[in-house]
């Protein structure tokens, strides 16, 4: 009996070992690097790194940026959430898709769009020469906060909207029946009920913001605004390279994120209300007066203009303009940059090839590994399975730059044993580590939609375990696996921070190619690549949606 038990646990133990090697070791390496110098514990140098004025200022910058982005994205999202949950606008489902566009746009690309639009002699000043000088306003903390908020607000919108949808109208109506005015109902019923969910959304936005690298690296850099991610990146890439300092800052960033997650967990368990009551909930639609309706439309239009219109207009037009100095004039448009992208030199083509290769390979590995992981977890009764799941999901909770630094340090250390560092292999490995949580989550959620009795029925009606897996389990979770694959493909295809940190020398991927052309090459060719990148990933997303819709049948 005991030997049998051990045999059953072997897959689980193997998984724990693999995940520890891939995820835990690099993280431990960061802490070790931060406090060990020349083989001795040395907390002093870590302390001195933190105490340095420039780093203190940077930490202040990061936290301030996080808070301001939470504030501004709330201001943008709150009215929209109300419109999309309580009024006629809730029926316009196409908004759900449109408002996901800013979130799905790689932040570094949107940020470049804004820079091209607002910079000195940029697109705005070409159209309205009187706006000269506006660039000083934009290249500031305010501009950075705006651009980052415009990227992240759809997330806040979804959180708030779902929170509001969870409040049955009867709760407000009963407030009205018992004599509370609109404002009082808002203050005493509505706001308290969504406050828990809002706090969770705010914490997530905060973590996302301080973990973000793309926007600070493009826009923040222009006016010397340093944050955690850019400083970690700088210490790890620019001579004199100081991995110790990089690791110290990464440790602090991990600490901050962990505190945020604990806070989030606390709020979820203590402060959120269970309002999904099924049968009884019913929604009364609020009829807006015509004037308010018009205002709502204008508000939506302005938000969309800022979040989608301006960045995409800038990127697309820049990719099509012949000579940027001449601006918008008949005859100054060309597709030459797109042709150059493929013909001028092999760099563009090889970057595309690399990205496609990396995305396909890492998405496939994630799909297999993640699915196996979920299957093993589900079939196991051991307590170890919680550990496996937690480690598997860990990469999603931490800023990717932190994990990437850990992987750099760890794989440098074991280079003599496993010479993976400085090859495309290390990129594949890092992508797999970073994006494994997507597959785990999608497959797990497709399992939760399958009643256990479907498998039990397969057993009773004579299916062997393999037959059940082939005929029932696999077809039913296929959608989850495919969604996970596609999401990993999309995100890996455009991933910036990993590639910019540990791509082997002279190996470019789409994101680093765009960065390089934007900073020191042909901006137009860079933007042509950006357009191509967005087109490709959007097409992939549309195919995915199509696929899911068809599955629903």
């Amino acid at each position, binding site marked *: 009996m005991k030997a049998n038990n051990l045999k059953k646990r072997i897959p689980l133990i193997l998984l724990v070992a693999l995940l520890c090697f891939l995820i835990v070791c690099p993280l431990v390496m960061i802490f070790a690097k931060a406090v060990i110098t020349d083989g001795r514990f040395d907390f002093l140098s870590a302390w001195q790194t933190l105490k340095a004025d420039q780093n203190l200022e940077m930490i202040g910058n990061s936290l301030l940026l996080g808070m301001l982005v939470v504030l501004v994205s709330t201001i943008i999202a709150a009215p929209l959430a109300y419109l999309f949950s309580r009024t006629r606008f809730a029926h316009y489902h196409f908004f759900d898709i449109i408002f996901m566009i800013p979130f799905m746009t790689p932040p570094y690309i949107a940020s470049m769009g804004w820079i091209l639009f607002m910079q000195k002699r940029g697109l705005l000043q070409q159209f309205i020469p009187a706006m000269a000088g506006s660039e000083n306003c934009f290249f500031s903390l305010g501009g950075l906060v705006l651009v980052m908020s415009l990227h992240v607000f759809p997330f806040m919108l979804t959180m708030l909207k779902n929170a509001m949808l969870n409040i049955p109208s009867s709760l407000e109506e009963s407030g009205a029946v018992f004599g509370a005015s609109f404002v009082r109902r808002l203050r005493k019923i509505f706001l308290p009920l969504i406050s828990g969910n809002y706090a969770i959304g705010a914490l997530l936005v905060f973590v996302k913001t301080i973990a973000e690298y793309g926007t600070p690296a493009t826009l923040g850099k222009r006016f010397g605004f340093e944050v955690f991610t850019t400083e970690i990146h700088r210490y790890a890439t620019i001579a004199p390279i100081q991995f110790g300092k990089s690791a110290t800052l990464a440790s602090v960033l991990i600490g901050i994120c962990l505190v945020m997650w604990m806070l989030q967990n606390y709020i979820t368990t203590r402060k959120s209300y269970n309002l999904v009551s099924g049968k009884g909930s019913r929604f009364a639609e609020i009829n807006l007066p015509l004037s308010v309706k018009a205002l709502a439309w204008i508000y939506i239009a302005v938000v969309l203009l800022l979040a989608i219109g301006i960045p995409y207009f800038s990127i697309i037009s820049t990719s099509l303009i012949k000579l940027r100095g001449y601006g918008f004039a008949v005859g100054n448009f060309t597709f030459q940059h797109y042709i150059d992208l493929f013909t001028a030199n092999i760099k563009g083509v090889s970057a595309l090839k690399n990205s496609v290769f990396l995305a396909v390979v890492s998405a496939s590995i994630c799909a297999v590994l993640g699915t196996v992981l979920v299957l093993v977890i589900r079939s196991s009764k051991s307590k170890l399975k919680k550990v496996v799941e937690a480690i598997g999901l860990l990469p999603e909770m931490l800023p990717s730059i932190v994990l990437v630094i850990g992987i750099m340090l760890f794989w440098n250390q074991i280079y003599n044993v496993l010479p993976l560092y400085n090859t495309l292999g290390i990129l594949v490995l890092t992508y797999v580590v970073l994006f494994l949580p997507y597959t785990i989550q999608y497959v797990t959620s497709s399992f939760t939609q399958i*009643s256990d*009795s*479907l498998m*039990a*029925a*397969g*057993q*009773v*009606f*004579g*299916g*062997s375990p393999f*037959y059940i897996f082939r*005929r*029932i389990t696999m*077809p*039913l979770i296929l959608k989850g696996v495919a969604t996970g694959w596609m999401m990993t493909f999309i995100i890996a295809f455009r991933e910036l921070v990993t590639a910019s940190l540990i791509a082997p020398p002279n190996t470019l991927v789409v994101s680093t190619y765009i960065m390089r052309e934007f900073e020191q090459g042909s901006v137009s060719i860079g933007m042509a690549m950006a357009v191509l990148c967005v087109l490709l990933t959007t097409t992939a997303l549309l195919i995915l949606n199509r696929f899911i819709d068809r599955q629903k*049948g």
Partner: protein
Amino acid sequence: MEIRLKAVEKSFNRKKVIQSTTLSMVNGGLTTLLGPSGCGKTTLLRMIAGLETPDAGEIYFDDRCVFSKEKRTNLPPEKRGLGFVFQDFALWPHMNVFENVAFGLRAAKHTDSLEQKVKDALHAVQLDDFVDHYPHQLSGGQQQRVAFARAIVIEPKCILFDEPLSALDALLREEMRTELRELITRLEITAVFVTHDQTEAMSMSDAIAVLSAGAVEQYGTPEEIYSTPKTEFVAKFVGSSNWIDKTHMFRPERASLEPMANAISFDAEVSSVQFLGSAYQLRLIYGDQSWSIPFSNKMSVGTKVTIYINQNDLIEVKETR
């Protein structure tokens, strides 16, 4: 097929959900496991199917041992050859009706004349025209019939039903009750039926096992269970009961307001009257007990009445521990 349980036990997380249970189910008839939720009836059924493993005891299908703790026998569900109708029907959403029904035959590689067998099964449940439909395109009653067709197509010696009617609305439930019973009789199948609905149990079963807290309280025909309940629990759970003291009760329809021979009489007072259409229901106060009995005429509250009950209709039960 006769199903025999011998001293079967089961615990979940150290909590005993099935006390040592010995039970043998009628060959060719319909046996119902009846009890409130959490009494262990579904666990018992799943142990017969092999979906749960008992902690102790033995299970026999006729002379074939499918589970025995001592002999270390445990036939997996796919080898037991039973039909099973699940509470939520458990139709595979990605297969059409035909494939759902054909699953058992394909899994066992019984593919000769597969099409004919599936069509026959669907014909038996009057779903001939729904071969190509997917489960979500069917109504609750139709899904229920597919689940039943899937169970009969493999020609099992026994079909297990786990509250198969509870997912249907009241009207459909009554219709399907009759239909299922007719099919089971016609196809001469042994059936084990789990339900918490005593009306359902009484109207369909050849034998009923009343369960409470993981133990069989009483096992017998529906008539026996109703007219001679052995314990307080059975008396209260099946039918309605008027209690004289802790161990004596009578069924409401046995009471009479007319004096009769060999009867015991009780003086009571009317506390409320309800009109039910076919009769009036009187609520009476007798000592500290409250009774309800049907009566053909209206009576005003406060009327003193005398109730007569035939000596034989007075039922003595064991007090529930």
